[in-house]
């Protein structure tokens, strides 16, 4: 438990909740990153209005520029202690990309907004991806000692 950071993790969660509330209360939208940013990869003409693409681009730009600024101010918040080969990162990225689009959501859309709306569909999704992630980490840790 030496790495336990209850206050910053809770504080970060509150900010994520605030972001979700901003989108819901002001714009009437659900804050799901894979739906917002993944929607940008849809082909031209997939949306009924130009705003659908522009607001998604604006949110995604906020994430990227937020990361840019925070990376400059607090690079330690992006420290990476995992040992992952390029191949493992590519496979993992492809799995997350395809999986979140097929499953219509990720940690934010299903995990916070879906559970917050008491959606049984999102609860099923959260239990599935959390279970798969627990199993994957446990299996890779036991089989390879944690480096991939």
């Amino acid at each position, binding site marked *: 438990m030496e790495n336990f950071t209850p206050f*910053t993790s*809770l504080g*970060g969660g509150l900010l994520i909740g605030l972001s979700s509330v901003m989108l819901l209360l002001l*714009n009437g939208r659900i804050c799901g*990153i894979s739906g917002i940013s993944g929607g940008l990869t849809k082909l031209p003409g997939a949306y009924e*209005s130009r705003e659908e693409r522009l607001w998604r681009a604006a949110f995604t730009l906020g994430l990227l520029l937020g990361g840019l600024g925070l*990376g400059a101010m607090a690079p330690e*918040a992006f420290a990476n202690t995992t040992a992952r080969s390029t191949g493992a990162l590519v496979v993992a*990225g492809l799995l997350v990309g395809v999986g979140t689009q097929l499953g219509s959501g990720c940690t934010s859309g299903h995990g916070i907004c879906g559970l917050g709306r008491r959606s049984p569909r999102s609860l*099923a999704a959260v239990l599935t991806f959390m279970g798969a992630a627990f199993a994957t980490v446990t299996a890779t840790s036991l089989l390879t000692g944690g480096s991939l």
Partner: protein
Amino acid sequence: MSAGEGQLEPGAGRRIAVAFAAGLVFAAGLTLSGMTMPGKVIGFLDVLGTQGGWDPSLALVMGGGLLVFMPVFRLVAQRQRPLLDTRFRLPTKTDIDGRLLGGGVLFGLGWGLAGFCPGPALTAFGAAATGAADAALIFTPAMAVGMALFQAADRRRS
């Protein structure tokens, strides 16, 4: 389907500005929480503590998010419309099907392999420009390719 996805409706500029601000706040929340450190995420997903002990911190990220979002959703759901638009656009699907669960399995596999889910991956990709978070330089483009491949295949199917 309209050609070029049409004109902007009234108030679009304000809504787009809100989306940008929400993205910034989301990035700040992720960074403060520890979600942008793949090792910390793996330490949370390692519930059996096979790598020296379970770190439950990140359960509080979802807890904190729900603490804010859940009560506000109950209040907002009674409104006819959001403050800056004419209607809410909320998910309508309720079915628990193979796509939902299969997608969840693939996502969980990738999340467990790398320690990145989509929000932290994009935030860390932005941070990578400063020299931090080099793994995101590989993971995040691969994730975008996976999303685009799915959208292209799904478009052809339907």
